[in-house]
């Protein structure tokens, strides 16, 4: 039981993020280069500070190294040069219980029920199924899937599978949630709904989110900061703070500020693509 009780979820805070001072740096990439075994240089000189309670979007054309950056942050692959520095020291391995990871695909085990899928991270940490019961139920309740605990993944819609994937990432009560284009494959209605749910979750949970996306609108709506990346080699070309108050609701999409920010992010993204020597637009 050690894993879950050691990190009990923080009590739901209903302060807005504005009142929660963007705290100390939680984790930082320092001068990170990544060259794969086949010679592809995916990242070059990446420096990025993720502060507590931030919602950072990594925005960039496909192939610019967003996933690679996220995977390095999670400690799934090592950087070729540079380091991942965690607050309080230690390497990624020492912070694994604090990281929740969500892929673009739901990546569920088809042979296991929804509850058993959510149980996986707990099971791997040696928590017995009985002790994990409450944590599983709580995670499923967070994503609104309590009624589907015994269903199998194939019986769920795409949006619901994604919710299960998020519930699984939340089951260890992570301090930081890393999400790699989690909603890219969903239809727009489902995506909007999940965007709002994600914001609410982050708010109740007071966790930090790093969110990879190639959608300008999504990044503006969700983030407190957008980091725009360019390809070949993958690097950061712009940072756009999103000063709009949180929590946000649908009405934010209709404000002039939203429009202005979308134009700004879009311009930065297109700048990034024009800067691409191989012609980023062609790569899309």
């Amino acid at each position, binding site marked *: 039981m050690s894993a879950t009780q050691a990190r009990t979820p923080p009590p739901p805070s209903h302060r807005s993020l504005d009142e929660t001072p963007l705290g100390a740096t939680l984790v930082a990439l320092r001068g990170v280069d990544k060259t794969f075994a086949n010679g592809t240089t995916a990242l070059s000189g990446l420096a990025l500070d993720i502060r507590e309670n931030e919602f950072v979007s990594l925005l960039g054309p496909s192939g610019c190294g967003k996933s690679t950056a996220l995977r390095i942050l999670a400690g799934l692959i090592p950087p070729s040069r540079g380091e991942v520095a965690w607050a309080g020291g230690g390497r990624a391995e020492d912070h694994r219980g604090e990281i929740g990871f969500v892929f673009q695909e739901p990546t569920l085990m088809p042979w296991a029920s929804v509850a058993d899928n959510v149980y996986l*991270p707990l099971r791997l940490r040696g928590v017995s199924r009985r002790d994990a019961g409450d944590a599983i139920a709580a995670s499923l309740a967070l994503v609104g899937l309590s009624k589907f605990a015994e269903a199998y993944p194939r019986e769920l*819609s795409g949006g619901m599978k994604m919710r299960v994937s998020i519930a699984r990432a939340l089951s260890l009560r992570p301090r930081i949630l890393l999400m790699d284009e989690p909603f890219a494959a969903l239809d727009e209605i489902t995506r909007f709904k999940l965007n709002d749910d994600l914001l609410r979750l982050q708010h109740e949970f007071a966790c930090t989110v790093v969110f990879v996306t190639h959608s300008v609108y999504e990044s503006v709506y969700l983030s407190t900061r957008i980091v725009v990346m360019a390809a070949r080699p993958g690097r950061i070309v712009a940072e756009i703070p999103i000063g709009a108050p949180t929590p946000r609701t649908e009405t934010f999409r209709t404000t002039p500020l939203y429009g202005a920010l979308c134009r700004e992010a879009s311009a930065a993204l297109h700048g990034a693509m024009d800067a691409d020597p191989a012609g980023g637009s062609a790569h899309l």
Partner: protein
Amino acid sequence: MSEANPAAEAGRVATVRAPIEAAAPGGSGSRPDPARLLRVALPLGLFALVVLGWERWVVAYEVPHYILPAPSRIMETMIADWPVLWASLLQTLKTTFLGLALAVLGGVGLAVLLSLSRLVEYSLYPYAVVLQVTPVVAISPLLLIYMPQEAAVLTCAWIVAFFPILSNTTLGLQSVDRNLLELFDLYGATKPRWAPPWLGRFLSRVKALWYLRRPAALPYFLAGLKIAGGLALIGAVVAEIAAGSAGAGSGLAYRILESQFRLNIPRLFAALVLLSLTGVVIFLALSAVSHLLLRRWHESAIAEER
């Protein structure tokens, strides 16, 4: 997120779930389905027609029974010779299932070893392929020289059944979602502190094997088992025939050979009928096992959704 959220999606789910739940109690035959009925009735009807035609033809042209016995005559022989045939059937079944069981043990065991160690994979896999591509008919006379007859027959059944299980299970163990394995690294890499790194890596491989590769490989293994079941019978028969031409044996295939020598063609047919029935039963039984194990989650086992 609120409970009300997935209400819209739940509507979609209900339509997907309904057919499964309807089909679950009492298999899928609880409601007679014309297409399904036809699929059973057509081959049965054809069978009856052929048997009837055969009977008529033999009677009408007075074909001697040592050339082509009538179906009724085959049935009579089956009943009259039942003690002999039954003993032979048991012998063949014993060889087949023992061969299959050993093939499962060996095939799965080796596949697991291959998945845990590249060294084992590189050194052993080529031999498994050689064993597979060499026709068993050609090996069996040799085996009969070096082994007691029963052991040789069993070995033949094992050789042919082994490879589909090995190759399917190996493929299955490798076909886990990459991302799931990464997730596993992320959450499962808590190694015991006392363990040296290599042991830690080995333990996490074993964990991944148990939690991810084993269930992912199950459908592949079962597909291999279905093939292997039929092949084990073929292997047993081939070896019995080889043994039979050396004048020894007691299985169904040996009865076929013996009946041919003695021109006891009705008994030959009876043995042949038993042999193909055995094959059909093995196939159906393994299909049923596969369906039972996979019906909750695997696409191959889920009733077509209308």
